[in-house]
């Protein structure tokens, strides 16, 4: 782990909403190739931190760097183009589009996508880009096992398949860092363990993954490292075993005051 360079560096990042400090001076590094979990009780600031990384919410102070490049202050689409792919907490697919068209938006975001290209005026570069989009989308669908449903309307997929569709859409953009926001929400035990295996496989292929979860079990099962947020602060950072023994973490999750000072 020591030899790995940091892909994502979060440096003293703070976000205030009026009088509320949702994320309070959080610092963290995610190494290239790591599979890191971010957990915390409801309202801990996980989603806010996630939105700060992906640029949806601007930081109040602090710096975030991706592969050495500062990304704070960039628009969400610029951050996505620099290689951060994401899924959403409440499953945000494009329901009135086909499965293939959904996934094609992932790589499309990384092309120049000029309006004159569909009129046949894009030349060889546009044609090459179109081929690349098709290939990336097909590969991503094959990767999650949705090739057979490519021409179905996304709204007609089962809940579990829609989850994979969302992941495929992010994968098709060939991200350097994949952030999954509560991917196990709404899945049963069997589906969750399938998903766990899939995430581990992706990581095994070299993809850096940050997993944001409310539920600890999935994170503890597959992550090499776990960060814990509570009330906007990072209260623990270590291996799953270390974090599970951490008194502050237990206090945050169980809410027992007298253990909090430990």
């Amino acid at each position, binding site marked *: 782990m020591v030899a790995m360079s940091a892909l994502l560096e979060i440096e003293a990042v703070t976000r205030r909403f009026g009088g509320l400090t949702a994320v309070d001076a959080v610092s963290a590094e995610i190494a290239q190739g790591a599979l890191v979990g971010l957990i915390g009780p409801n309202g801990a600031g996980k989603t806010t931190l996630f939105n700060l990384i992906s640029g949806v919410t601007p930081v109040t102070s602090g710096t975030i760097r991706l592969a050495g490049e500062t990304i704070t202050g960039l*628009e969400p689409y610029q951050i996505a183009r620099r290689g951060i792919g*994401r899924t959403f907490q409440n499953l945000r697919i494009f329901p009135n589009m086909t499965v293939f068209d959904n996934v094609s938006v992932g790589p499309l975001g990384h092309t120049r*996508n000029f309006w004159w290209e569909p*009129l*046949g005026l894009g030349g060889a570069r546009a044609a090459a880009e179109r081929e690349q989009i098709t290939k990336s989308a097909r590969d991503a669908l094959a990767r999650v096992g949705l090739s057979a449903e490519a021409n179905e309307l996304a709204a007609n997929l089962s809940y579990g398949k829609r989850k994979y569709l969302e992941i495929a859409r992010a994968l098709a953009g060939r991200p350097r860092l994949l952030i999954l926001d509560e991917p196990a929400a709404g899945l049963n035990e069997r589906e969750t363990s399938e998903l766990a295996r899939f995430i581990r496989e992706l990581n095994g292929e070299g993809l850096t993954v940050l997993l944001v979860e409310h539920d600890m079990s999935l994170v503890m099962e597959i992550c090499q490292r776990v960060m814990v947020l509570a009330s906007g602060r990072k209260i623990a950072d270590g291996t799953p075993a270390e974090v599970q023994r951490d008194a502050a973490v237990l206090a945050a999750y169980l809410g027992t005051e007298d253990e909090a000072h430990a």
Partner: protein
Amino acid sequence: MKPLALIGTVLAVAAVTAALLLSGSSYAVQVAITALIFVILTASLNLVTGTAGLMTLGHAAFYGVGAYAAALLSTKLGLSFWVTLPLAGLVTAFFGFLVALPTMRLTSIYFAVATLAIGEMIVVAITNWTGFTRGPMGIRGIPSITVFGHEGLTVNLLVVLAATLVSVWAIWRLTHSYYGNGLRALREDDQCAEAMGLNAVRLKIEVFTIACFFAGIAGALFAHTSGYISPESFRFGESILLLTMAVVGGLGSVPGSAIGAIILIVLPELLRGAGNVRMVAVGVVLFLCILFLPKGLFGEVSALAFARNQLRRAGLGWSR
């Protein structure tokens, strides 16, 4: 488009055109010209509203900008139709671009209200700037279309048909391409589209500008085929008619736009004998359509789901 459907469409268009020309009815040809102009308008509106999800309530005003640009360029500067046609498109596109710049950050129905207001402002400006536009009196004596010295209804019909086919082809390409997928992604969830790397604001400005270009083309065709224009043709009611055509044909569908426009131009003409009741018939068509064909004839999204989505994004929605 599947080859069979394409061949069928070409044959049907050719057959109807031939029948119109052979019938010798100038009234029928005039109705056909109007219908074709509305096909361009509806298809361009549908690109913005049905495909990209930006509800615009001022499209008829941009149609007016194109018509006035063509009329003024030809009557004041003596330019021929072949020059005013592209210029009207470009002038209208530029207008659309200027409108889009500040309004594209507005969400859903706030954008719709802004386009409604801007549309009315354009019409009021045309109506009151009498020194330039002759105001409510309108502009008459707009030279008609000439092709190698020929003019007349037949020429008008064929030129308008050609312009319609080119416009519909371009809008079809824009809709059915990866670019179109990007537009659909904006309609479905623009924040999520941004997280995929799409520059939503740029795409919205582009698609609005493109749609205004085609509205301008339609305006020039109208000015030169009718010879007379006045502000009355470009009011809010016309924008609503265009929206109705798009909903009946199907939001996001190019063939739907064409069929919706043709139905809602031809139907009132067929009912002309019924007097003012015919406008009630238009309302009934819309009502029945939303009731029994929520996605219109060929639509991708149901009109009700679309409206709900617009309200939800504005924070005014009822839950799913």
